[in-house]
């Protein structure tokens, strides 16, 4: 039990920083931020908790509660994608994860998903923001048909359209 836990922890804490950097890199800050996972009690890791610290590019605080709404979302996504990489499930379903993000961060998330979506990992993303949903390969439009009081579905393959 302890071994399994350690293997998971070692893997995830090994990739968290690179994942966070990939999500927070920009022209202004090519290095991105930094993120770490630390065990609160060295000897019995699965008894104690694990502390997550993320520091946006060029900020100086390590406490998570000082992060803004958008900064917290980016830190959360880095953690989510890192945990996923240990025993990757075949797909993600993400419901309006971009609600607190400004356009620049929406763009970074879209780029990350586009880069990592593939046969090993499928992304199904619910979004209200053009900056994210226009990057999809397939667009599923849902509307309410008032006549019959039901939701209806339309699908569209975006790949046949030139990049917006």
């Amino acid at each position, binding site marked *: 039990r302890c071994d399994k836990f350690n293997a998971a922890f070692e893997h995830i804490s090994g990739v968290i920083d690179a994942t966070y950097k990939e999500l927070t890199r920009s022209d202004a800050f090519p290095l991105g931020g930094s993120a770490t996972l630390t065990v609160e009690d060295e000897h019995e890791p699965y008894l104690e908790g*694990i502390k*997550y610290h993320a520091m946006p590019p060029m900020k100086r605080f390590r406490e998570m*509660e000082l992060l803004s709404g958008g900064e917290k979302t980016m830190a*959360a996504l880095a953690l989510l994608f890192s945990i996923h990489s240990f025993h990757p499930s075949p797909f993600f379903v993400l419901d309006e*994860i971009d609600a607190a993000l400004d356009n620049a961060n929406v763009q970074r998330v879209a780029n990350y998903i586009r880069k990592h979506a593939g046969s090993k990992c499928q992304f*199904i993303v619910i979004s209200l923001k053009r900056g994210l*949903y226009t990057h999809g390969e397939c667009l599923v439009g849902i*509307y309410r048909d008032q006549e019959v009081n039901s939701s209806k579905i339309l699908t569209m393959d975006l790949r046949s359209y030139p990049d917006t």
Partner: protein
Amino acid sequence: GTLKAIELCNFKSYRDTHRVDLGDSSFSAIIGPNGSGKSNMMDAISFVLGVRSSQLRSTQLKDLIYRGRIMRGEEVSSTQSQEATSAYVLVEYEKSNGDLLKLKRTITPSGTSEYRINNKVTSSGEYNATMKKENILVKARNFLVFQGDVEQIASQSPQDLSKLIEITS
């Protein structure tokens, strides 16, 4: 593997049968106005994987069945009076070796769940084991992010984070 298609029948706001073909898309985006049924689609995917109804904004399975709900006072026409008494969600999942898995979960008129793999009734244990082989760990749920939940992933307590890592190990 990948999710190829989702079929819903009388599930939440989806009256009668609806089907979504994702084809071989690895990045699908679901869009639509507020209240149109986007999160209900995510609930459908979560439901068919075995997630409990309490996680799907409902108290019991019956709440997940389509309700046309006639408002008090409206006369009930004969076609509308038959409220749906059962509902199902079916997903077609293609394994990495090319085999097609049809996973179906039905809410029966008595309010219980019925699980089927490739149209054969199975127990929920076996159903879960089949998904585990595909690395779909419903208990960890680290691949499903419900609306409004993303931020608290970063600020969860150290104990919760350690539990999450333990389940995925």
